[in-house]
């Protein structure tokens, strides 16, 4: 019985496929993400070209999905966007410094701890997991940043995404952002 119940859970609760948003939402998501990522890239290009610093990390792509593609989601709110990246970056850097001789352990502990910390601080933001992982698996340049990684890119980047989200997501009649600040 218990075994059947366990496998029964795997069949899901809901029939049919998930709903699709309308075309307007698709276009708005595209434009928002385009502007947000472009803004981060421009700032990176104009201010940090030729320096050891880089403002663009992969996890911002994931943040763009939330902040421009699922505006209402609790996971996309400012507190989560900025706090999630910031805290996860701290966790990632600490894990790299303490555990870098065991890469597999540094990676898994970084992501798992980032999730736990985001939960505890009510800043759960899925891309934060990537920010923590990148701190460990990143290039030598990223490792060299040390705790500077927390500020740059992990705080400045989300702040730019947030600024674009505030400006863009409130233009269309069908959108408003944020739902909750802090």
């Amino acid at each position, binding site marked *: 019985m218990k075994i059947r119940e366990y496998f029964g859970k795997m069949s899901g*609760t*809901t029939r049919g496929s*998930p*709903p699709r*948003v*309308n075309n307007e939402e698709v276009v708005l*998501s595209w434009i928002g993400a385009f502007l947000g990522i472009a803004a981060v890239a421009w700032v990176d290009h104009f201010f940090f070209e030729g320096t050891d610093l880089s403002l663009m990390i992969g996890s911002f792509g994931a943040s763009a999905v939330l902040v421009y*593609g699922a505006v209402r989601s609790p*996971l996309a709110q400012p507190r989560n966007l900025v706090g999630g990246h910031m805290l996860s970056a701290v966790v990632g850097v600490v894990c790299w410094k303490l555990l870098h001789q065991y890469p597999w352990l540094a990676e898994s502990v970084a992501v798992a701890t980032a999730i736990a910390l985001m939960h505890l601080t009510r800043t759960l933001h899925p891309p934060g997991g990537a920010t923590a992982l990148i701190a460990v698996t990143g290039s030598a340049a990223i490792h060299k940043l040390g705790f500077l990684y927390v500020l740059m890119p992990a705080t400045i980047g989300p702040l730019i995404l947030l600024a674009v989200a505030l400006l863009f997501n409130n233009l269309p009649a069908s959108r408003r952002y944020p739902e909750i600040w802090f």
Partner: protein
Amino acid sequence: MKETTATTDKPAQSSNEVPEMELTDGDILDAMQHIPGYLDISTEDFRTIYHLAHHHAVGRLFGNLRAENLMRTNVLPLHPDMYLDEAAKALVRSGYKALPVVDADGAVIGILTENDFLRRLQVGTFLELLLHMLDDSFEFQHRCHETPVHKAMTAPAITVRQEAGIGEIIHAFHLHEGRSLPVVDGGGKLLGLLLRKDFLKAYDMEALR
């Protein structure tokens, strides 16, 4: 629990239930269509939230709408061996349209209503009785002196437990035509009388607006 009473027997936790609609996936998906943007929630989760929120709201609105808070106390009950003429006087003194009948232990065994009198006198309404009395008042006197309460009363009485909430009370009122419900404790002993008008007064629909 005495077998002579038909208490609506439901667990106390369901005593606050207010009919809740079962939402289908179609209902929820249709609602989601009306909200622009991507909603980060599954239909099943929404249903769960809706259900729990409903439960919480009912508790907030009707939590203190319990039989023991609404009942009239100091009700002098009738006894099964009283004759109907005494019972009629007691009813008039009480000002109620019906009085519970209790045994020696105070357990509710029935309820005597104005309709029981009419049935006993083989008429349908008080107006009909009035016409009969103008013809044949003797027979009316006679029947009332001869008949003890337990022969005329409605038994078993529909009662509610003191902790009954809105759902149970409504259910009990649905089970019979009467205007009042005896409120009993766990042992079926009479505690008070819940009048329909008191209940309706407390069931303030304004709170729902």
